């Protein structure tokens, strides 16, 4: 994966498959601590202890079309490769929280990349799910929340192409105002 935003898109699909109704994504850039922390938290079905232990193994997957599942192992590799780590907490019936920490200034850290694209694709791919995305840079933050969008749209579905384009521009402008690193 060339961008951290692609890892986020991929990991959030796990939450979608876990039947979450709310997926909260946050990126927290902290210059003083020199860390970039990505959290993806959902209220989906969760995993039992046994699955939770196996989930970093690339040969663990719930899919049936092939025998490998690379999403979590790839993200862990990216985090560990720049002095960070990946942690997953999960409870059956409650949900799952994945937290990956990256060395912010590490030379091998991939750029955050196109988060507006990731959010637009996530929302239009799962219009029935609510997404909250918070991006924080040294305390200043921008939040995108589909629950807010829904009150404006009413009966218009979130996967309408025009809405997807609006989301992309809206998130882009929000991030520009933060002057993302």
């Amino acid at each position, binding site marked *: 994966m060339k961008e951290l935003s692609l890892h986020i898109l991929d990991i959030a699909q796990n939450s979608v498959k876990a039947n979450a109704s709310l997926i909260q994504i946050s990126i927290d850039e902290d210059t003083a601590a020199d860390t970039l922390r990505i959290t993806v938290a959902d209220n989906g079905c969760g995993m039992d202890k046994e699955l939770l232990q196996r989930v970093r193994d690339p040969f663990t997957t719930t899919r049936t079309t092939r025998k490998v599942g690379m999403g979590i192992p790839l993200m862990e590799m990216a985090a560990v490769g720049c002095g960070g780590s990946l942690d997953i907490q999960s409870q059956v019936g409650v949900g799952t929280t994945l937290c990956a920490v990256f060395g912010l200034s590490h030379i091998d850290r991939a750029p955050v990349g196109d988060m507006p694209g990731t959010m637009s694709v996530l929302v239009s791919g799962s219009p029935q799910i609510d997404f909250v995305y918070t991006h924080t840079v040294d305390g200043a933050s921008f939040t995108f929340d589909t629950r807010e969008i829904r009150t404006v749209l009413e009966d218009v579905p979130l996967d309408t*192409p025009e809405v997807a384009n609006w989301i992309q521009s809206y998130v882009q402008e929000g991030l520009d105002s933060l002057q993302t690193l």
Partner: protein
Amino acid sequence: MKSLAELQAIKNRVSQQVSLRQDREDGIRVVIGMATCGIAAGARPVMSAFMDEITKRGLADVTVTQTGCIGMCRLEPIVEVFMPGEEKVTYIHMNPEKVSRIVAEHIINKRPVAEFTIGAANE
């Protein structure tokens, strides 16, 4: 600056089309593989390009959706186009540049772009 007021304007404009869309069972479906393999190969910009092109051309009867791994990871990004009454067409090794041709030639003019399909790759 993108505002919620602008979103409201989109809502008002689209509302009527939506009821139209729900009534029609003969809509065109574009399905994009969005599992790890698809994402790593570049499915996200392909999906954005479809959304963009469909908005630009004001195509109300086309829906863009996602699916997981189709099982041919080496051919990703994969896009399947379902036209009512036609057989499914599978496009492989997609990129945003190919999208405008598929929208113009296949979705609008009903002629699949043979050279981008999985059939062409197998020959």
